[in-house]
């Protein structure tokens, strides 16, 4: 957001001579949600940049509308691509809140769906199913996870295409009522857009969610623990850094979700350790995750390459 003051000519009946754009944001409380975004989400620089740009555009649009300048509703449909656990659903939720605060969606609720919610099992099942979901999502944001599963090319009896067509129609005609956010892996979303150019042309913002760096994952881990009133001891912190470095090399790494699972397992071992030592524990003990809780992870075993499912 570069400008904070602009000067208008004599356009409307009684316009203010100078407009404070920043005030737009604070008045609508969109600034609060933006700050929440900054604090709660670690990393994700391209995402935050793009969201700030969208917020700036929407704020300027609001002011233009008030001044009587023509302004068409911008297309707000978005595509979030990235690996699992990079925060796509979380950001979609924040997006819904921001759009609601700026007055671009009426209710600001998020309806997360996957293919199963949109596609039917037999002829005639898909259209009512998709329409119901769209009706529920009106006035808010429809978040379609793994959107590429909608279109199954190999199976000719697949009804995903019908769902896609209904979606495309609503995305174009009901732009004021509904914002659609699709999400998934980058390469497969590319394939999906290639086979559905109509979809790609309706999506204005393609945002990529990069994988977190080791330092960012550490920060995420600490904030997750802080939210649950735990903390790392100094040794545990070093051990967890080593854990992150080792785990990232292993397959099926799901970024923040893997970290959450790892912390849950560390809490498990922490509880077990205190249980078995059979002596009294202090409040501090109950709050501190120590090195043994992290180091006993199988990730450190050189024999075992996989860590099992992350779900």
């Amino acid at each position: 957001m570069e400008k904070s003051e602009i000067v208008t000519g004599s356009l409307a009946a009684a316009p203010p001579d100078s407009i404070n754009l920043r005030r737009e944001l604070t008045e609508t409380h969109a600034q609060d949600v933006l700050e929440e975004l900054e604090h709660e989400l670690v990393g994700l620089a391209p995402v935050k940049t793009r969201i700030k740009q969208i917020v700036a555009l929407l704020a300027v649009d609001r002011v233009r509308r008030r001044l009587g300048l023509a302004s068409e509703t911008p297309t707000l449909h978005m595509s979030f691509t990235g690996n699992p656990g990079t925060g796509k659903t979380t950001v979609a939720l924040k997006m819904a809140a921001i759009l609601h605060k700026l007055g671009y969606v009426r209710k600001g609720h998020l309806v997360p769906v996957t293919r199963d919610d949109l596609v039917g099992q037999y002829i005639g099942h898909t259209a009512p199913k998709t329409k119901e979901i769209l009706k529920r999502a009106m006035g808010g944001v429809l978040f379609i996870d793994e959107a590429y599963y909608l279109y199954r090319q190999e199976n000719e009896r697949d009804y995903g295409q019908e769902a896609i067509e209904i979606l495309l129609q609503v995305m174009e005609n009901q732009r004021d009522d509904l914002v659609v956010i699709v999400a998934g892996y980058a390469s497969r979303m590319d394939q999906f857009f290639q086979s559905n150019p109509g979809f790609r042309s309706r999506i204005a913002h393609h945002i990529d969610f990069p994988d977190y760096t080791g330092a960012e994952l550490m920060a995420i881990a600490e904030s997750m623990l802080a939210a649950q009133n735990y903390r790392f001891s100094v040794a545990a912190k070093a051990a967890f850094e080593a854990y992150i470095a080792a785990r990232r090399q292993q397959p099926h790494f799901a970024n923040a979700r893997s970290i959450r699972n790892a912390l849950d397992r560390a809490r498990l071992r922490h509880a077990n350790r205190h249980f078995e030592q059979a002596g009294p524990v202090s409040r501090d003990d109950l709050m501190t995750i120590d090195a043994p809780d992290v180091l006993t992870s199988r990730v450190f075993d050189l024999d075992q390459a996989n860590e099992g499912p992350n779900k």
Partner: protein
Amino acid sequence: MRITQGCFSFLPDLTDDQIRAQVQYCIDKGFAVNIEFTDDPHPRNTFWEMWDLPMFDIKDTGAVMLELAACRKAHAGRSYIRISGFDSSPGWESVRISFLVHRPSEEPGFRLNRQEGPGRTMRYTTEAYSAGRPEGERY
């Protein structure tokens, strides 16, 4: 002859914005919004055909207008379409508001039938001119 059934029926046709405002009122009050249509305009015809189920869990006017647009596409010019709001709170459990949102292109009106009974009693019935033709071919 414009039939005057339901709320606002003496006013000129409601615009989409006005319909939206009414639907928003129903949603704000927690009524279930329902769309119905019929081609029999008799005032005692209370059971119109439902256009899909009542929208119990819809909290946004956009969805209702979408359904209304679909209903209009299917029945424009041939039927009356009305929107009603049903209040399910204890003590009410009934339709609280009901208004016409679409009329057929021409409304011929009603005929008054007089039937003479024994001892100079007269029985009166209202009959719609359009009801003389079969369903689907009335307008």
